């Protein structure tokens, strides 16, 4: 079975996890792609932790307003019915469990639900930004990641080795191979994304994976 990295499949599957009216925070990078695949008939409300509810698309060239930016500092727009707020209010919304889903990128995620995504000591120390608050505070935490590092190692681990963003807070991991739920210190494989198989995933992942009895193979 040949593996070709597929970020869009990750985004497509995550986009189907939301319900009408859910408040969602999408991290910069891979998670942002999720916004491209929200099913018709479902309206979600995007929160931007720098102070906005109802995050809209980037403005057309020449229409940029640098008073309205996303969490990456890039100009965006606000949708009708959205609103702005200061940083203390924004993180009150996040910490208070008023964000239903947060989708974040991954350096490592382990079967205890630990996430490491903000620091590689000695190499990359960008700071956690709002990620620690998002992972600690959001109702449901989804780790979105290519299954493998460029080296071929799985990003899903028995135990994270990098500094943690938050301990035991991850609910779901969605990779380009499948959808996993973290339950009882194990990854439970809920869905396999065709053409991959549960066997392939178990073989290539150095972690305890329980294949659900009703685990399905789905096409994305």
């Amino acid at each position: 079975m040949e593996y070709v990295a597929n970020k869009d499949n990750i985004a497509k599957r995550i986009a189907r996890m939301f319900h009408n009216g859910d408040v969602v925070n999408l991290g910069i990078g891979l998670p942002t792609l999720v916004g491209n695949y929200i099913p018709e008939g479902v309206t979600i409300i995007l929160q931007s932790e720098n102070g906005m509810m109802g995050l809209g698309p980037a403005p057309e060239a020449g229409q940029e307003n640098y008073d309205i930016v996303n969490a990456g500092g890039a100009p965006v727009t606000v949708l009708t019915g959205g609103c702005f707020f200061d940083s203390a209010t924004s993180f009150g919304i996040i910490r208070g469990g008023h964000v239903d889903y947060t989708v974040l990128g991954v350096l490592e995620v382990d079967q205890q639900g630990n996430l490491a995504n903000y620091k590689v000591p000695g190499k990359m120390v960008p700071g956690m930004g709002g990620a620690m608050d998002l992972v600690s505070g959001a109702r449901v935490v989804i780790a979105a990641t290519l299954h493998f590092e460029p080296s071929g190692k799985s990003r899903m681990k028995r135990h994270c080795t990098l500094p943690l963003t938050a301990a035991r807070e991850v609910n779901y991991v969605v990779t380009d191979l499948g959808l996993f739920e973290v339950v009882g210190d194990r990854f439970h494989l809920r869905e396999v994304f065709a053409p991959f198989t549960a066997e392939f995933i178990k073989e290539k992942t150095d972690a305890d994976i329980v294949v659900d009895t009703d685990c399905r193979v789905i096409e994305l």
Partner: protein
Amino acid sequence: MIEKPIITAAEAAGKIKEGDTIMIGGFMASGSPHTVIQAVKEIAPKGLTLISTDTAAHDFKSGRITGIGHLVANKQFKKIFASHIGLNQETQRQMNAGETEVELVPQGSLAEKIRAGGAGLGGILTPTGVGTEVQEGKQVITVDGKAYLLELPLTADVALIKAKKGDKAGNLVYAGTACNFNLVMATAAKLVIAEVEELVEVGEIDPNEVQTASIFVDFIVKAEKLDM
């Protein structure tokens, strides 16, 4: 209502003394007081401690520097409290070289620490950072079986903030996401200098729309340019 002195950016920068702790509003240079920042770079007080959610951008390849990045490049900080320095390569270089101490604070905790400083709280309990490096050296307090970190207040000698509109008494209104940390910083410093894009007479802002009350503002600077 008492009107506040309207001063130049250079006069504002002159109020910062060597070794002061300063807060600067903004998020990746959006909503930062750029006119005052430029003057702080020119007058160049050194040995400062900075409290800000980030240090904007400094890209070595292109040479592009934005916002607070100008002050980092000018080596004015001995210590920086920030939540994110990933887009400022010079901040990272100074940290790695041991030239500047950088304390990384989760963004929500930073906002609450500043708010606590301004609101007379002795600290707040947050779940953020429990079980991570952020926990080191902090008191862990368990409430209803859940662990929280005690995060202590932050205050400053001077806060440099930016508003869309201000009246001559110092009542401020922000726009879009440019409010960010400006709102809490206005409450947490001994001296608050507000850079405003639009300066209006007292009474021209509806009392229902004021976001920062005039009493927090000591000096007003008219924004001269909006480059970042």
